[in-house]
């Protein structure tokens, strides 16, 4: 029992290389989740055409309707333009958050050679528990808001929000808002990453501390992680919606 420590790594470890592109364990898991989602989407699509539809179809439909209703309350009639992106965000983040909880993710190990010594690293790792994924999602969200701000308002009005030459106070506030946009990327990325990664660390450490016959104590934490995965996906999408709405509407 001397050197047994739980394996916690803050970054995804590289499994192999495909043409000098390092494939990490989180890239592998995300690819599998996307393939799984394609199956769910094709199932939904075949069920739409039938007359008697199954229960799974109505469950997915209800979820989509709730998300659509939530966003329509904020965006009103711009929802047609943005629901493709925001709905995809929701399902991508939700499935990747929950993929870290599937039994086997994080525990199935793989032997890898690194400069002559062999490590055992987890073969799968939840997609959003890697800062690269969440940073990419946050960057896409913020750049989408900026791009559609330019498109809906025109360049002059949109840049006029940040470079406001009426008086020095408003100029300073405009510069601050610009910095706030950049900080928004970091905030989105770290919120999602921190929640999911901390959940993974919790679910690794708590069974490590308990004897085997008491490990049912980690069951409430498992349910809380399911809930946190759902809430964080929802929060990401609602915040993206609000910022897109703010960027594309004539306010102030």
């Amino acid at each position, binding site marked *: 029992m001397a050197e047994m420590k739980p394996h*916690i*790594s*803050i970054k995804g470890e590289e499994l192999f290389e495909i043409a000098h592109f390092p494939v990490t364990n989180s890239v592998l898991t995300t690819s599998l989740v996307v393939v799984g989602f394609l199956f769910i989407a094709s199932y939904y699509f075949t069920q739409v055409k039938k007359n008697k539809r199954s229960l799974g179809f109505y469950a997915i439909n209800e979820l989509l309707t709730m998300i659509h209703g*939530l966003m329509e309350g904020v965006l009103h009639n711009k929802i047609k333009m943005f629901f493709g992106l925001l709905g995809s965000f929701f399902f991508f983040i939700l499935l990747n958050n929950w993929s870290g909880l599937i039994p086997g993710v994080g525990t199935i190990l793989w032997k890898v050679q690194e400069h002559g010594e062999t490590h055992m690293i987890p073969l799968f790792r939840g997609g959003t528990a890697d800062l690269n994924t969440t940073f990419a999602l946050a960057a896409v969200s913020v750049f989408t808001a900026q791009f559609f701000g330019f498109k809906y308002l025109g360049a002059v009005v949109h840049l006029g929000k940040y470079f406001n030459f009426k008086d020095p106070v408003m100029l300073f506030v405009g510069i601050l808002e610009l910095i706030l946009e950049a900080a928004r990327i970091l*905030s989105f990325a*770290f*919120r999602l*990453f*921190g*929640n999911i*990664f*901390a959940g993974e*660390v919790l679910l690794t450490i708590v069974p490590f501390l308990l004897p085997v016959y008491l490990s049912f104590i980690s069951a409430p934490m498992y349910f809380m992680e399911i809930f946190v995965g759902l*809430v*964080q996906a*929802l*929060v990401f999408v*609602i*915040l993206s919606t609000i910022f897109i709405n703010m960027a594309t509407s004539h306010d102030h």
Partner: protein
Amino acid sequence: MDAESMRLLGTALAIGLGAIGPGLAIGLIGSRAMEALGRNPEAEAPIRTTMILAAAFAESVAIFALVVALIIKFV
């Protein structure tokens, strides 16, 4: 005081002190939400949604502190 002890101390302080503010904030958000709900029980759905949204904002500050603590410990 060698580096290893300071690292452990830094981890504990980062998350310990970093959770004070968000804890208070989420408590205040919940209490004001319940007050608003008591005044106007018909507006339950918007109050509930806005409360969860505001609580997620406040919690993200605690998560930033947790990420710093994890980076100190494991990197």
